[in-house]
């Protein structure tokens, strides 16, 4: 077992919540080189450590906070990755979040923090360099994310701690509850909040004072400066700097024809001008906010100042995915109601993407007469009815009443429960609700939703090669706004230029692609072992394959069976998987994944 020379501390903190005991484990340099960190290392560790078919909400599930090699260095905008078996989809779950906490884990000297077991009472975890404490969270159990963060900083008597917490939704194990960093940033997808809730962990506070070891700091900093400059100057991103991703809402409506509207019925929503980036810029936003070292500052904070019921409300966004799913997807036009909905999700710890989908689905099945208001505690949500949606969001987070219990299941389970032809209106892949670009209008996004190992996720890459690239970037735990498009011209060269002087390795672009394929394939192997995932699951929801877009710039577009076949075939061929989407034995052995052969190639 070799210790890493630079870039990593080579240490994993394992906390057994049941007994409260901690253990420091070493990470082998070879494993780090093969799986990099973040998403990739998370998948590997989960495959190795988690017994097959574990119930995701049982104490046996494993929850990990993972950093990458670039966290806490001069490389701009490094984030934090969380990995676990997802209670929402039953397969690999991971989510990435911006904000300052990822670097803090690294500065505290930990590449990975792994949680096992279940605490007998509500706790939050405080990590100060090598010191680890499990502190009483009884006073904040039931409190929203903002109050929880403020309490933790007060309780620790130091506001320099960086925090990550769950809200009431996570405590109640809502399948699509998220984890919130710095009040507004969310590790949203796959239901990580529910896993922390099932372990009785309200949050984590981290403070570190170390620096990341480097083999050749000068060469690394030079490459990091170039990476920074690429991110700062890329033309496509100047709009993101100005309007955040919220500005893409208008673009998706007028140009790309992919603005999800009214539960994916159409992509044409002229009222987008009332909820999009320009409206927010004019009447709501007050300041830009950055992640550490990042020149893009895509996050916008604002305050409702147009009078009315929500005057004085401070909220973040609208971002593209959040704004669309909680806006045009619900037919909303009142800006203040719409921001209140988004802020409520952040405060209660709900994933806005899944929540928006669930509300849209509920509205449509009610419209079609598949459920009755009696199933929703007498509530009758209709398109544009912000007040009712807000009531439902609160009910979901608290699992309150019949409506709360029912809506907290997510669209797949809801459709299963309703039966009849409800599945026609359920927009999900592998149980995870789709995000806010309609793949009928923007076809490449079909890859991300259908082929991505998370299911229904918008962050997986838009082609076979793109997914490999993004898998590697997610394993370095880099932001896609810095490492995705801006680095295109120099990828993977820029990664090697940073990684090699930092670690003392000699990574080549060829190794980069092999490593990326290994990461995708180990996630696939986990999904095959846990969920029996195969070709039949790598498919878009039926509505997107059968109903052409009725209007808008991409009128008539549909994701045809031919498109699906082309997508699946090209993907399997690129990764060396068989026709059924199962990695071949040869591929697995070539990628040093011999330990998965028995599970994957099982007849």
């Amino acid at each position, binding site marked *: 077992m070799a210790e890493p020379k630079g870039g990593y501390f080579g240490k994993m903190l394992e906390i057994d919540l049941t007994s409260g005991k901690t253990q420091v484990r070493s990470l082998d340099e070879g494993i780090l080189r093969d799986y990099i960190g973040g998403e990739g290392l998370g998948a590997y560790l989960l495959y190795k450590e988690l017994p097959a078919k574990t119930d995701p909400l049982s104490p046996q599930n494993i929850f990990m906070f993972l950093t990458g090699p670039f966290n806490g260095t*001069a490389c701009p905008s490094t984030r934090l990755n969380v990995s676990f078996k997802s209670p929402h989809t039953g397969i690999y779950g991971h989510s990435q979040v911006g904000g*300052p906490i990822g670097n803090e884990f690294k*500065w505290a000297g930990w590449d990975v923090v792994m949680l096992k077991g279940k605490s007998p009472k509500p706790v939050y975890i405080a990590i100060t360099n090598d010191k680890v404490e499990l502190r009483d969270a009884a006073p904040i159990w039931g409190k929203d994310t903002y109050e929880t963060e403020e309490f933790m900083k007060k309780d620790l008597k130091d*506001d320099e701690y960086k925090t990550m917490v769950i809200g009431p939704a996570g405590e109640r194990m809502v399948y699509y509850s998220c984890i919130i960093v710095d009040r507004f940033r969310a590790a949203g997808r796959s239901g990580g909040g529910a896993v922390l809730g099932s372990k009785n962990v309200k949050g984590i506070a981290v403070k570190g004072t*170390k620096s990341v070891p*480097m083999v050749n700091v000068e060469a690394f900093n030079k490459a990091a400066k170039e990476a920074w400059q690429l991110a700062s100057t890329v033309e496509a991103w100047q709009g993101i700097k100005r309007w955040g991703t919220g500005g893409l809402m208008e673009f998706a409506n007028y140009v790309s024809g992919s603005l999800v509207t009214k539960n994916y019925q159409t992509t044409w929503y002229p009222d987008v001008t009332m909820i999009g980036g320009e409206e927010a810029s004019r009447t709501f936003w007050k300041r*830009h906010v950055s992640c550490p070292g990042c020149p893009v*500052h895509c996050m916008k904070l604002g305050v409702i100042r147009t009078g009315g019921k929500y005057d004085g409300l*401070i909220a973040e966004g609208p971002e593209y995915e959040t704004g669309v799913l909680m806006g045009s997807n619900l037919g909303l036009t009142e800006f203040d109601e719409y921001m209140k909905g988004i802020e409520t999700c952040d405060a209660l710890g709900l994933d806005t993407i899944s929540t928006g989908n669930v509300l849209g689905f509920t509205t449509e099945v009610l419209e079609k007469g598949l459920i009755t208001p009696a199933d929703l505690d007498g509530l009758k949500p209709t398109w544009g009815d912000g007040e009712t949606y807000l009531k439902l969001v609160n009910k979901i987070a608290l699992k309150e009443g019949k409506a709360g219990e029912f809506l907290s299941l997510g669209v797949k389970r809801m459709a299963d429960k309703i039966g009849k032809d409800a599945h026609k209106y359920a927009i999900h892949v592998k149980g995870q609700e789709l995000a806010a670009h309609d793949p009928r209008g923007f076809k490449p996004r079909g890859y991300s939703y259908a082929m991505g190992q998370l299911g229904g996720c918008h962050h997986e890459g838009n082609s076979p090669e793109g997914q490999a690239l993004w898998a590697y970037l997610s394993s370095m735990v880099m932001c896609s706004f810095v490492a995705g498009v801006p680095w295109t011209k120099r990828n993977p060269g820029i990664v090697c230029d940073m990684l090699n002087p930092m670690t003392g390795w000699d990574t080549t672009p060829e190794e980069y692609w092999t490593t990326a394929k290994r990461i995708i394939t180990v996630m696939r192997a986990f999904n095959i072992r846990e969920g029996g995932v195969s070709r039949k699951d790598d498919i878009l929801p039926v509505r997107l394959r059968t109903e052409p877009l009725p209007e808008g710039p991409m009128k008539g577009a549909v994701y045809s069976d031919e498109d699906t076949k082309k997508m699946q075939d090209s993907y399997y061929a690129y990764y060396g998987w068989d026709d059924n989407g199962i990695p071949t034995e040869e591929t697995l052995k070539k990628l040093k994944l011999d330990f998965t052969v028995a599970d994957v190639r099982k007849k």
Partner: protein
Amino acid sequence: MSERKPDDLERPETVNSSRRCFLKRSAQIAGGIAIASIQSVASPPAILAADPKAPLKPEDRMKYLFVQREHCTGCRSCEYACSQYHEKGAVRPAVARVHVKRFHGVVDVPVICWHCEDSPCVKACPTNPKAIAKDKDTNVIKYIDDKTCLGAKCNKCIEACPAQFLRRHPETGWPMFCDLCDGDPECVKACKAQAEDTAAVIRTNKAGFGVNLAYREVTPKEAAKALHTSLFYPNKDGERR
């Protein structure tokens, strides 16, 4: 200004009560600086320029720092640059002199050394001879003798700093002073590069014209409250409904 001896300039006793009008005036002055600097941003980002290692001539050295807090995005590139300068290229915000504090998740307050003429930190130093002194040529606080400082056993200079700028080194326990990077502050360059399309927050100058003496009285917490009010104006029911 640098010709005057630090001791000549006693800290005015009334500064707290008259802070309001003092701040109003200095805000106007600061606003003037901001406009001038935005217009003059034409050079390539300083962070990318080759490091000129030659020491600056005394007349070229910067002697003061300023902040325009309302533009801060909380990106912390100033902390990165500061620690890289002082730690041989390593990023380590725990030892950065300049630091940014975030309050309530919505406002960021950059905390800098204002390089006060009267140096309350030096005055508060209890040892004899004093462990720290102000260098008249560079306008920074320097350790006279490393062994004199009581380190973690003493808290006098940290308590005396009106801006709550001073922090301890996590290992040695010594307070960390801003040395203006030998007259060419790295935080200023990093902020300017990062802020090319918003507005730079940390600025530097050779003349202090009194602004620093007024601004320094504002603690980070008070600054946060002021920013919170001016940006988000919470109403009487509190900020959230």
